Every structure is written in structure tokens, then in C-alpha cells.
């Protein structure tokens, strides 16, 4: 894990008293959440526990019934267009790449709209972002329909990074991917966090991602949220959390965590 960023004081993203209801059904009941600068926070929970709604609330796409979300100290709904674009980047679950544009054009779209850079500079930056996301420059002329699942995620990540946002939101970045590609995405997220100091919020089901990439984990349980490091959550008395982190799949993820730890210590 990186020394940089983690808990260096100020919170870049904070949500206070979030309440979300759909009809009579409570999804979130008074949720508080703080994400520090440079931190990687994982958000997990059972199906239908409101992970995606929480992500939409944090990014300002969904207005909560009560509560506020502050990004860099400013309420999310008061952010201007360009300001929002330079603060947050979102990787949607299906990529949400614009199908009528090529991959490079997808990455260049925010650059074109929000900056005064010349086209050739935009292209250079787009090529660099694609490389950052682990794609080669020749992927740029392809259209999204020609990409494989893993490449779609990487291209969408390159687009999310287009304006060097300070917070990156990832919605299920490893879903529908084979284990090898999924580990590649995990490593990429970690690398971007370390190299660029970017704050990352990951919504995921993937225990390996939670165990190996995230600094802290937020679990949505009974419409509330429990945030802590994986170690402490492992000893939670809540039966759901216990089962979630001790299930058969958790064993493998824990192994991966140990391995990742020793590896990163060996490197230093």
C-alpha cells in the first residue's frame, strides 16, 4: 500500500446523513461516509443493498431524499459542469462508451468540450490516457463494438481519467471479466492511485478487489454503512459481515491479499 494519501487528514469526499427511499422501501437510512485524499475505498454489500444508488448519490446523479454530499468541500449539486468534470470521473458498469464514436474520440470528448487545447494536443493526451489505462494507441481508432469486455473497461477508464479527476468512481470494474483480466484491472487501479495520487471509490462484489486493492471497505448492511479496514471487519460480530468475509470465496481473496502484501513489501 502506498504511504502517500492514506489518511492524510482532509476528506475529499464526504456524505452526511444520506437517506434514500423508493416508495416505502428504505434503501439508505442516515448514512455517513468520508473518503480521504488519495484513499481507495471499496463499497460492498449484498444484491439490492443500494450500492449503485449510493454511487449515483455520491456522484450527484441521484438526489438523495435527505443529506448532503460534499466534493472538495462543495455540495455536489452546486458544482459547475467543467468543475464537476475535473473533480470526478466515473467508470460505469457497462463502460457507457459512446457507440457512435471511436475509442479515441470517446477519450477526447471531455477534452474537446472543457479545454482549449488544439486537436493534435488532444490526440497526444488521448493516446497517453489510453496507455495509462493499459491500451495501445492503435485501439484508438476502433469503435466500442469491436472491443472485448476487458478492453471496454480500460477504454472507459481512460475516458474517466480524461481530465485528471481527483476522485475516480468505479462501478463493478471487474464484473464480467475473466480472472486474469480482472487482476489486471485491479493492478491498474492500484498503480494509478500510487502514481497519480488519485482518490478511488470502488463499488464491487469482487472480494479479491476489496481485499487486495482497497485501503478501507464500506459494507452496506441493513440500510446502514459500516466502514473499516478489512482486518477489523473480519472480527465484526455482525453475522452478515462475518459470513460475507468468511465465506468460501473469501478464503482465496485472503490468500491473494497476503501475496499482494508480501510482494509490495518486497518491492520497497
Amino acid at each position, binding site marked *: 500500500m502506498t504511504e*502517500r494519501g492514506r489518511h492524510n487528514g482532509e476528506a475529499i469526499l464526504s456524505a452526511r446523513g444520506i437517506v434514500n427511499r423508493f416508495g416505502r422501501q428504505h434503501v439508505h437510512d442516515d448514512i455517513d461516509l468520508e473518503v480521504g485524499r488519495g484513499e481507495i475505498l471499496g463499497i460492498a454489500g449484498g444484491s439490492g443493498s443500494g450500492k449503485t444508488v449510493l454511487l449515483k448519490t455520491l456522484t450527484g446523479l441521484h438526489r438523495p431524499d435527505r443529506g448532503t454530499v460534499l466534493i*472538495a*468541500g*462543495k455540495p455536489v449539486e452546486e458544482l459547475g459542469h*467543467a*468543475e464537476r*468534470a*475535473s*473533480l470526478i470521473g466515473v467508470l460505469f458498469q457497462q463502460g457507457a462508451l459512446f*457507440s457512435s464514436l*471511436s475509442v*479515441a474520440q470517446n477519450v477526447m470528448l471531455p*477534452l474537446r468540450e*472543457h*479545454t*482549449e*487545447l*488544439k486537436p493534435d*494536443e488532444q*490526440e*497526444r*493526451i*488521448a*493516446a*497517453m*490516457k*489510453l*496507455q*495509462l489505462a493499459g491500451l*495501445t*494507441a*492503435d485501439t*484508438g*481508432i476502433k469503435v466500442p*463494438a469491436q472491443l472485448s469486455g476487458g478492453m471496454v473497461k480500460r477504454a472507459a477508464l481512460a475516458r474517466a*481519467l480524461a*481530465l*485528471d479527476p*481527483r476522485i475516480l468512481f468505479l462501478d463493478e470494474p471487474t464484473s464480467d471479466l475473466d480472472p486474469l483480466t480482472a487482476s489486471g484491472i485491479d493492478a491498474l487501479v492500484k498503480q494509478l492511485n500510487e*502514481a*497519480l*495520487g*488519485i482518490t478511488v471509490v470502488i463499488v464491487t462484489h469482487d472480494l479479491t478487489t476489496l481485499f487486495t486493492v482497497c485501503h478501507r471497505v464500506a459494507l452496506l448492511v441493513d440500510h446502514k454503512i459500516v466502514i473499516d479496514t478489512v482486518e477489523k471487519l473480519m472480527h465484526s460480530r455482525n453475522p452478515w459481515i462475518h459470513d460475507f468475509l468468511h465465506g468460501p470465496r473469501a478464503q482465496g481473496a485472503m490468500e491473494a491479499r497476503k501475496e499482494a502484501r508480501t510482494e509490495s513489501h518486497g518491492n520497497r
Partner: protein
Amino acid sequence: MKRASAGASAATLTLHGEGDRLALEGALETQTLAEATRALGQWLHERATGGHRRALDLKALSGLDTPGALFLCELREKGVELTGASAEHKALLDFIGGLELKPLLKVPVTPRWREIVIKLGKGADEAAHETYAVIAFLGRAASEIARAFAHPSRLRLPSISRHIAETGISALPIVGLMAVMISIVIAYQGVVQLRPYGGEDFTINLVAVSVLREMGVLITAIIVAGRSGSAFAAEIGVMKAREEIDALRVMGLEPMEMLVVPRLIALIITLPLLTFFSDIMGLAGGAVITQFLLDVSPLQYVARVHTAVDWKDLFVGIVKAPVFAVVIGIIGCMHGLRVHGSAESVGRETTRAVVKAIFLVIVMDAFFSILFEKLGL
């Protein structure tokens, strides 16, 4: 990474010093990059020649993002020495510098005239393939229908009745309304054109003949192509996109028999009935509007219609309906089955189905006009 401020517009960058040594102060970020490129580009250009040892001091740089780092890396490659970078910025520079950077590939540009020729050729080729595909699909559908009638257990009556309700009964209001509107249009034009010759009474003949022979069936077919042709394409298309068609095949069920045959049969049954309904509504609309324009009572109107048209005119209109039904049904189902992959494809095929169905209906109608004229009907 620190930034001068959260607001994108607030980031500033200034350039100090002169000669071979310059210093950057402020934030070198996406927002200030255009400015930096302009200022430093000139400096580089001026000092490109001779043994200048150019250096750029980054001590006072408060913010640096990846495009900024990319720009500095490019400067470094051009021989500019970067000095005084903070550890954080140095790490970022090394990271970006370590990427294997290649320019984006360009899409090859074809000249305009060649593009037109290529499009023309492709269009002609496609048209030939399309014609073949429609005929082949028609053949397959016909053989499936024949097989269904040979084994009546394969005739899916519940499915047929559902499609009759959807394509027929729920279309009644719109078809009736359109028929009334069309006869109002014809009656108005007829009265205006025929009045100078004192023949405005013939407006009734005009309305009756054109509604029964042409307008009733044509309007009905166009509305049904828009309503049901598109629905067929979209329903089957969504099933295709979600692999439901493949699921049917794997279970040993023939999509043609399950999906296409009931829709076709239903449409062949409903379109003539709808046409008849549309004829009646058109004549009724004519009765109302001529009473208003010509003071003809409904009874007089009926007597007049009786002399103006006979069963032959009604037959000429309605006999076209099953043919149009086949055209609409075949085109709709065929384009539905052509969907592959994404939701975008469903929209495209649905549009194509409607356009092609309406086009073919009108072409067939012209063909029938000539045919009936030659036959003396």
C-alpha cells in the same frame, strides 16, 4: 497530488526568467496547458539552434497533472533540462515518461468522389442481396405456414389470437380516424375542383371510389406497417439481442414457427378486416362531410354511393390487403431476426423495417393499379 484550487478556472501559470533558463510558477494542468504550449513553444523555437543548454525550473510549480507531465516529458526529450522538481512531481514525470507513447493511428481518408462511387457500388450490391433475402425469407415463411396447416397442432392458436388482438383490435380507433380524415380531405378537394364545372355532386363518386379502391387499404396498410411492422421487428429484435432466439433453437423449437408464422397469419387475417372497417369509416366520413358541404342527406348519400360503386370496387380494395399483410409481416419479422448484438441494432432494424414495408406497400399498390386496369376491373 496538490492542486492550487478546486476550481478549474482558477488555475494559473506564469513563466519567469529569460535566456536559456526559465522557471514555471503555478499549476501546469489541462486548463493551463494551451497557454504553456504557446509560451514555451516560442522559447524553444528561438533557441533551437546553437549549443544552448536550455533548462526549466519547476521549483515553484504547485500543481501538475498527467497532460502537464506529458508536456514536460516531451520537453525533456527535446533536450530541455528539468530542474528543481518536487519528489511528487518527479515521480509523476517518471511514471508518464516510462509509458511507451505512440501517436494515435489516423483513419485513412478516401477522396470524396471515390467515396460516392464506393457507396453507389455497395448500395447496388446491398439491394441485390436484400431482394434475394426477402424472397428467401418469404419462401421459408411460406413453407413453415404450409407445414403448420398440415399439422394443425403446430398452429399456435393462442399466439395467433393475441397477435390478432394487438395488430387488429387495438388498431381500430386510429385506422377509423385516419379513414375519416382522408375522406374529408378528398371531399374538400373534390368540391373545390368540381364546382366550376357544376359537377360538385360527383364529389360523392370521387370519395366512394377512391376510398374503396385505394385510400382505405393504403391508409390501413401504412398505419399497420408503422404500428405492427415496427412492433414485430422490435419484439423479435429484442429477443434476438437477449439470446432468446438462440435459447429457442437450443430447446429444439423453430423460431420461424414460434414467432414468425403466428404473426404472419394474424396479420393476414386482420388487415382485410381492418381495411373493410376503414372503408366503412371512410364512407361514413364522406357522408358527414358531404352533408355539410353539399347539403346531401345521409339517405341520398347512400343512394348515390350505390350507383357510383359496386361490389367490384370493394373487392379490388380488399383483395390487396392480404398481400400487403404478407409484405409488412415478412419485412418486420425478417429485420427483427437480423438484429445482432446491441440495443442500437434493434432501433436501426426497426426503422429499416418500417421504411421498407411502407415503400413496398406503395410499390405493390402501383403495380395492382396497373394490373386491375389491364384486367378491366
